[in-house]
């Protein structure tokens, strides 16, 4: 029921934002919005994973704190890929990472962060939570490093720590 109410309200707010055109809404727009929000909320109730732990405000604060850091890494790496496109200097390879994350949410956040940061692309994940990442420029230091934590640092800086804070 909580999921139904939350999803309905969220859908209705998005509907209002989409139909806003500078002046106040008409009644027919609002009525149609309520009807469609209830339909969407009822469907969400059926498919949603009911895990309320991820709703705690601390995690949302961590997520907001994570965004600037993430966009900084993304911009930095974008220039790296732009350089590789122009010069054609690539050393591709698929490497295995063991970030040691437990639940699905944090692994999803980490995999999406890795994919959105240019230069790395998560290809697969196995049951133990190991990520297989396609890396466009494999650094030789990566193989000499024995510590698993430091290994992750070459590919995705401190993203695993952030994913752990947000997701677990």
């Amino acid at each position, binding site marked *: 029921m909580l999921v139904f109410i939350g999803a309905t309200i969220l859908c209705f707010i998005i509907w209002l934002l989409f139909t*806003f*055109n500078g002046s106040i809404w008409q009644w027919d727009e609002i009525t149609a919005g309520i009807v469609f929000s209830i339909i969407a909320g009822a469907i969400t109730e059926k498919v949603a994973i009911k895990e309320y732990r991820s709703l705690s405000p601390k995690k949302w604060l961590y997520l907001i704190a994570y965004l600037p850091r993430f966009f900084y890494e993304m911009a930095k790496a974008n220039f790296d890929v732009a350089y590789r*496109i122009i010069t054609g200097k690539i050393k*591709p390879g698929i490497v*295995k990472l063991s970030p040691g994350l437990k639940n699905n949410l944090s692994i999803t956040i980490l995999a999406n962060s890795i994919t959105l940061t240019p230069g790395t*692309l998560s290809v697969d994940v196995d049951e133990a939570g190991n990520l297989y990442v396609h890396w466009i420029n*494999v650094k030789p230091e990566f193989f000499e490093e024995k510590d698993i934590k430091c290994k992750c640092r070459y590919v995705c800086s401190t993203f695993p720590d952030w994913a752990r804070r947000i997701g677990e």
Partner: protein
Amino acid sequence: MMWELIYVLLGIGIFFNLLASVGLLRFPDVYTRLHAGTKCTTFGSIFVALAVMAYGLWKWYDGDEAMISLAIHAFFALIAILLTNPTGAHAIARAAYRSGVKPAKAVIDELGGEKND
């Protein structure tokens, strides 16, 4: 002043989208092409969407009230791109690997031999 800002944002966006198309032609195999074709387009599209948002907010501030919807729609399009782009890239890469495409010129392939169906 606003026009210059919009032109700069559009210029950066189009530059990265152009680089993405150049990368699609230059790179050797499907994985490296995915790098060019998904990442640079995301970064480029962020700037194009920012330019549209700046234009919409500016015209709204100047008194054309309907223009706020342009900025809102561009903002939601940006969120949709940011959410779907990594998911799509991941799906394509995984499907390519499972159908037997090996990474070209790879210096290492630690996923090889780990067929976990």
